[in-house]
């Protein structure tokens, strides 16, 4: 996966300047997006995460009118799993994660002040998993946490409405996948899926 990321980055670094010079650079070739996300996590097991929130900031460089290189940062709040009880005790897990995004963003702009777009790329995540556990009055519990980093991928599709020549509002559905979380540290790694609905503003310049 690391090799895949390196290849992808290399492709972007090599292709973007070449392509940008080869084409007529658009007047407004860059865009900054800030989005608020309503997230839903799934760790693939019997987890039942509550919905959470996140913030995403993304920068796009349009080397063609319809295609941009996309780089961004997304960070979630601490998202809680349901509290539950088993033969060991009462416990609750929570996850906080941040990711760097790197990919491509194609778009199609209609004649009216609307456009649709997508994002597709790789991400590099840093995820902290925390577990609170309590046993009984006589046996104290506590918190324990661990952090891992690794690769994954993301894809999204959205629509934008230009409210001025430069500013647009965006609505976007996102899917992010973190692969092999805690592999190498544990015999029980998992893949973390984050689906999200986001709303935000974009600024073209």
């Amino acid at each position, binding site marked *: 996966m690391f090799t895949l990321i390196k290849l992808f980055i290399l492709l972007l670094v090599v292709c973007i300047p070449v392509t940008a010079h080869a084409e007529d650079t658009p007047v407004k070739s860059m865009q900054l997006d800030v989005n608020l996300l309503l997230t839903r996590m799934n760790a693939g097991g019997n987890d039942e995460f509550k919905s959470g929130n996140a913030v995403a900031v993304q920068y796009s460089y349009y080397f063609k009118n319809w295609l941009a290189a996309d780089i961004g940062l997304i960070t979630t709040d601490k998202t809680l799993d349901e509290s539950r009880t088993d033969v060991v*005790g009462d416990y609750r897990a929570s996850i906080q994660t941040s990711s760097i995004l790197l990919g491509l963003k194609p778009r199609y702009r209609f004649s009216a002040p609307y456009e649709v777009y997508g994002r597709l790329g790789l991400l590099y995540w840093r995820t902290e998993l925390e577990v609170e556990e309590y046993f009984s009055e006589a046996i104290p*519990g506590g918190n324990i946490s661990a952090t891992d980093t690794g690769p994954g991928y993301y894809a999204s599709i959205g629509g934008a409405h230009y409210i001025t020549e430069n500013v647009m509002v965006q609505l976007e559905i996102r899917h992010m996948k973190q692969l092999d979380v805690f592999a190498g540290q544990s015999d*029980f790694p*998992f893949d973390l899926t984050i689906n999200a609905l986001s709303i935000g503003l974009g600024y073209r310049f």
Partner: protein
Amino acid sequence: MQIEATSSGGILCRTGAIVLTFLIVGCEVESSDNLPDVSESGLFMYAEANLHDAEETAPIAAAETAQIAAAVFRDGQPVGLVGGDVFEARTETDRILLKESGSFVGSYAASMPIDNSVQDVFLNVVHEPVEAREDRWYPVDLLNIDPGPGELVGKSATVSFPPAVKITGPAADPVSVYASIDEIIDLTWVAGGEGNTIGEDDTMRVLSAVNCTDGLATSSYGTVVEFTNGDGTVVEFTDDDGLEAISLDQFIYDLNDDRPVLRFIKDAARVLLQELLNDLSAGNIDPDFLASQAEANPVNSACEIRLFLQRQRDGQFDASFDSGRVVGSRSAEVVVNYVPVVQLN
């Protein structure tokens, strides 16, 4: 259901009565525990392993599975095993942790693959901080708060299985049908087990899983049959003599009766029977089937009564326990139906 007469007004009245009864009585029926002689002082061990002799039509898994339940009491109160302490059941070839929690803190159950050659099951309390958490979704070997072994770790008991149970009556096919709770079920079986003389120490117990419907609502619950000794004391266990006459009111009751004769199954016995029902249905049964859910009035409903006859043999518990009840049991099932004669004005 046999209906002798009908009228719209009568049906309306009956429906109203059922709804009113439901509102007044509620859904849960209180009952005392089914654990005999739990000492009010000291450490008490309860353990039971039941091997059910399923019909050929039952899932294969049920025929090869023993249901195991265990609990520990201190001064009459159940002790919860926490922090990775858990009951382990072991035979010569298999091993399982009892991770299913029962209806009260301190009762645990599991189903264990077993065959007829197995005579004994060894139960002990072990400390397995990772394995006890393996049903959780996150990396339990990495994120593990381990308080260390508790004081019950190392304590043990051994259960031995008695001979198999063979029910000879009532007949399984066709299914016997009863119309009144005053009727008697003549439950007969091969005394002492096939090919055996009557075991001196073996006792019999009758459990039931009852499911009733009145066409609008259902009720499901479990009962333990009580027997009256010669000296008038009421007990759950009877001699292994091959015959017991049991009144139907040990299984069917009237929601309007404040003091029904029957005794609902509770606690560890309920955990064990629920585990057996799960195995027999391959998991396709309400996990609260035995939770005394009374929405239809059983006495006026058509009910399926699954009778489970258990032969029990006392086992041994660790000397570190002050007292206890450790039994190995084998069981067989017969189904009878209750279809009341409905009389309408």
